[in-house]
């Protein structure tokens, strides 16, 4: 069912790059998507949430006196107050400063690892689908193998070895274990695109495989890939958070949303603010990202969601 939708999308994209706007004029496809996006409240709410949180994580510390790893020994485990806006944790670290620092780490990992996984899926999937034959057999088999392996346990085993390379390492491995499902979808798409006239024409003109994939196959799936990259951010942040929560991801003195949740779980039922502030920040951020992803899906795919009926 999904592949069929995307098929229609493929036709849509490969046709002449023109569409009619509601005013009766002609607009490029990018323009059309933008016009649809502009009307979507989901998109604006999502962009607003994510943009504000990113700005807050980057510039927030400039406007706040407490630093993440400075303990206020007179106020340990205190609830939110004028001095400590989100209270302090059990050893007196300021929660507001910690959450900003943690959000920064989680954002960096999510924003790089999510799109990176999509990139791997695009390259590997289109190679398999476009070339077919033995390459396809090997890649499909490899994807199936990767899907059987429980990636979380593998990540747990790898991350302790990374030491000070933990952030680039996490990005690398989260992306490396997050591309398979999309890879299969891309493969199916590339298989049908291979038979299209414009791809054939390019092939008969003697254009190389990678050039065809780069110029024709991947752009034809752009919308699918953009959606996946956006929603991939959610998956990557969730992976990082889970790894850090169980003590295998980010290690002290570094902070991430996951380490904050882990450090404050014990106190969650008695001093809820310690757990709730990083939890709410995480949920709101991911909620915002998924809103953008859904708005993109609606705008890019005329057969789904808001653009339907």
């Amino acid at each position, binding site marked *: *069912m*999904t592949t069929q*939708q995307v098929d229609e999308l493929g036709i849509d994209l490969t046709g002449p790059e023109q569409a009619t706007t509601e005013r009766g004029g002609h607009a490029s496809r990018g323009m059309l998507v933008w016009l649809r996006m502009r009307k979507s409240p989901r998109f604006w709410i999502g962009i607003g949430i994510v943009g504000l949180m990113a700005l807050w994580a980057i510039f927030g510390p400039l406007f706040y006196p407490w630093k993440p790893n400075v303990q206020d020994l007179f106020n340990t485990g205190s609830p939110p107050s004028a001095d400590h806006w989100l209270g302090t944790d059990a050893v007196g670290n300021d929660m507001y400063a910690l959450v900003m620092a943690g959000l920064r780490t989680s954002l960096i990992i999510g924003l790089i690892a999510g799109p990176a996984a999509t990139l791997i899926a695009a390259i590997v999937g289109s190679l398999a689908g476009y070339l077919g034959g033995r390459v396809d057999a090997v890649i499909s088999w490899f994807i*199936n*193998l990767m*899907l*059987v*392996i*429980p990636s*979380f*346990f*593998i990540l*747990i*085993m*790898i991350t*302790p*070895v990374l030491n000070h390379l933990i952030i680039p390492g996490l990005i690398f491995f989260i992306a490396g274990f997050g591309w398979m*499902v999309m890879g299969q979808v891309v493969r199916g798409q590339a298989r049908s695109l291979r038979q299209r006239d414009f791809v054939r024409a390019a092939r008969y003109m003697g254009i190389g495989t990678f050039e065809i994939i780069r110029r024709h196959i991947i752009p034809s799936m752009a919308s699918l890939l953009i959606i996946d990259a956006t929603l991939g951010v*959610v998956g990557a942040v*969730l992976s990082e*958070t*889970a790894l850090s*929560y*169980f003590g*295998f991801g980010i290690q002290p003195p570094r902070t991430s949303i996951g380490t904050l*949740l882990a450090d404050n*779980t014990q106190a*969650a*039922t008695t001093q*809820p603010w310690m*757990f*709730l502030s990083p*939890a709410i920040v*995480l*949920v*709101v*951020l*991911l*909620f915002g*990202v*998924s*809103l953008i992803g*859904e708005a993109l899906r609606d705008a890019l795919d005329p*057969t*789904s*969601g808001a653009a*339907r*009926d």
Partner: protein
Amino acid sequence: MLAYLVRRIINYLILTIIATLLAYILASYTLNPEARYLGRNPPLNQNSIHNILAGLGQDPSVPVIQRALTWFGNIIFHGDFGMMYNNQPVLHSIIVRSGISLQLLIVGTILGAFLGVVLGVWGAVRQYRASDQIVTALSFLVLATPAFVLGVLLMITATRFNAAVGHQVISFTGQYTPGLSGTGRILADRVSHLVLPSIALIMTGAASYSRYQRSVMLDVLASDFIRTARSKGRRRGSAMIRHGVRVALIPMSTFFAYNFGLLVTGSTFLETVFSWHGMGELALTSITNHDINGVSGSICYVAVLILIASTLSEVLYAALDPRVRV
């Protein structure tokens, strides 16, 4: 059909075996079983450490590939997954603990999928009504929340609830209270422990299933055969259920296989949050104790679960789609 199914199962079986072997090899490189015995007081001498490790099949002087093959040979010929760091046989631990984990996983998977399908169909049928908007917003919220955060949030809520009622109605540590007697009380106690982790897992499952089911159902509702069913005189509800839902469930069966892997990881998190002594704990403690046999055993267990789920989803697909049945 049967031949196809058998071929798929054999294919999955080969994948499972390779995945397990790769896990063993990876574990042998990243984990260091010697670390368990170093730094003890009084210190163990190198020879006895060596002997213990050799007994576990983890002699560092033997090449990793050879150790992996020996370990695998023992599974095939003797059904022996080796010993864990605490001298329990791995297989025994897996059997005991998987019973605990499967309780949660089965309840979560079945109810989660059921609730997800119902919510998805409901959302599609009443598209853009208030109920659809609310369910959509809620499922986005749940999808943005990691399973373990959901677990802790439920714990906070339950604490408040218990305090308000003035009685420990919902329990959230372990899978039962030790030292109870009487079948009724034990049963009630089990249920009261099962409630929170199940709710968390059901919510996670239902949220992702409902999103997908809603979108598939919308496609189905727009198709011609629904109009045909309506025009030949079927009432709206019956056309929806007999023709619509059945067709909309077909792609769901594939999605079920994908999603199952996520639910297994999710239930691992929940077990840890609620201090259940299940497979999640086994896997995590094996890794922190540098136990290669334990880790590989747990990964094999998860791979087998995914194998079963994938096979089930193929059977479901065949049962729902008459074109596949031959």
